[in-house]
């Protein structure tokens, strides 16, 4: 690469870095402002000394404690259930012989083309008639199985040498045991990657939670933060709202930074949902 190209490349990277980082910086700076007056002033008021108390205050404007608990409970529960259904299904497709396997697998792939939003009205009707509106059930059960996850886990199971399974069978292990004990151990990395992906999808879900819940007690963080913005009569208190936004964004970012490779490893396998 010529040195000119290198310079252009570096400048470009600096530009992108600024673009990526600036929104976060602006959020943090605003969250440290002492009060609304400081936020709503021109020229820009530098928040010194920084008001870390905003974070505590922000958590009281809306019951973020409840929202956080709901987010954690629904995301963890759904992820756990997805792992189980995915392991069971992937095992069946990989190691069991049964009639119509290919057709059935096609049915699973077909689900990939049925995003939730496309059938939201009958889904609303079903959830309503089940009496599940505004309950945890509505936020967990419909997500207890995921076609993409099943596909991914199946791929990975298929890449494991069959010897292991043969050996276990000879030792007399039953299918369930093999599926959970052995496969989980051998396929750990991909299962962890899938679990993190599933967790992220549930954690960041806004649309479904918005439609299926209406009480404060069942809201999750993505909906809660929007409620905080909308219900602010007398002008938005940006310093508190930005503090709250940071708190909402932080968990996923921390998870990502500490378990990076599980995020990117999977993407390299080709394709992911948003």
């Amino acid at each position, binding site marked *: 690469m010529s040195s000119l190209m290198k310079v252009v490349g570096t400048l470009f990277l600096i530009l992108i870095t600024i673009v990526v980082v600036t929104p976060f910086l602006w959020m943090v700076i605003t969250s440290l402002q002492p009060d609304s007056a400081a936020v709503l002033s021109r020229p820009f008021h530098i928040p010194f000394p920084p008001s870390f108390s905003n974070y505590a205050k922000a958590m009281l404007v809306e019951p973020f404690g409840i929202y956080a608990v709901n987010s954690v409970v629904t995301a963890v529960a759904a992820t756990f259930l997805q792992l189980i259904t995915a392991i069971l299904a992937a095992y069946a497709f990989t190691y069991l012989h049964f009639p119509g396997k290919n057709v059935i697998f096609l049915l699973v792939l077909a689900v990939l*083309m049925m995003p939730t939003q496309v059938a939201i009205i009958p889904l609303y009707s*079903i959830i309503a008639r089940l009496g599940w509106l505004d309950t945890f059930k509505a936020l967990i059960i419909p997500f207890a199985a995921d076609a993409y996850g099943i596909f991914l886990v199946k791929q990975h199971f298929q890449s494991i040498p069959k010897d292991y399974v043969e050996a276990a069978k000879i030792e007399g292990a039953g299918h369930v045991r093999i599926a959970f004990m052995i496969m989980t151990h051998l396929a750990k990395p991909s299962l962890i990657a899938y679990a993190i992906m599933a967790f992220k999808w549930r954690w960041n879900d806004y649309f479904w939670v918005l*439609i299926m819940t209406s009480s404060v007690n069942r809201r999750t963080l993505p909906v809660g933060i929007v409620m905080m913005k909308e219900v602010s009569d007398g002008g938005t208190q940006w310093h508190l709202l930005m503090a709250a936004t940071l708190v909402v964004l932080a968990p996923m970012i921390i998870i990502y930074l500490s378990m990076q490779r599980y995020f990117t490893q999977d993407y390299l396998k080709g394709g992911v949902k948003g």
Partner: protein
Amino acid sequence: MRKGQLKKKYNRQEVITAFLFLLPMFSIFIVFKYVPLLDNIRISFTNWNLFSSTSKFIGLQNYINIFTSDMFWQVLGNTFFYTFWSTIISLGLGFLMAMALSHRKSKGANILRTLFFIPNITTASAVAILWMWIFDPDFGLSGQLFNLIGWESPRWLLTPGYAKWIIISLSVWRSIGYIMLIYTSGLSSISEEIYEAARIDGASTVQQVTRITIPLLAPTTYFLLLTTFIQAMQVFDIVAVMTGGGPYNSTNVINLYIYQTAFARFRAGSAAALSVILFLLLLMFTIVQRKVSQQRGKDYV
């Protein structure tokens, strides 16, 4: 089945096990995927209003109303506008980012790669609120910057011409890390020798990129184009939070329109029809994606 091989006999035990293993998955799919998809079609032929337990069959009335309403075409146009531009810009920037970071193995480069991916994992609704504050024309980042140079910031989200682009900018910001990642993986599979040979032949850097890199990345590009496109068609969170479809429906996209039709206008039948239309559009693009990637000889899913 290979010729001459006896048809495999199924072990009854195994079949039952398989059934039980697949049962959890299928129960969920039947109740929450297959049935709703079909029921959606049924509802689209009625005038259900989300309340009553009864609804009347009205045939194609919903579809006729939709196709003859100006609003639908405006929403569809907005959706394609947003989808097209956010896809193209994301792909372009993501590609350049992958290029700029390729062949750089330094700690700094790795940090950047990690950093650039962060927007991708953020909660869309929360970042949408951040974006509203950034582009606040009075005291947000935009307001402050314009004030520094003595001008008044445009009222971004209140001006039909600009609001669309603000939303596209958020979408691009959230996608480029992922696109960069995919392109990086694609780039690493191009062997260095090809470039060597080109350099020996006297090709400049630009020529190397346009004649080698881009063509060899074509499968990746097709894959990204279509998956990003299909994703973007379904945007909801950022539009619902930032503009609610305004100003004057200039940012109203199809998913938001479906939501409004069902939950604000209580025309669930019509909303179901819109959903069917959206589903068919997505199906069409998915089929195109598969055809193209099959043609290219590589299956990316």
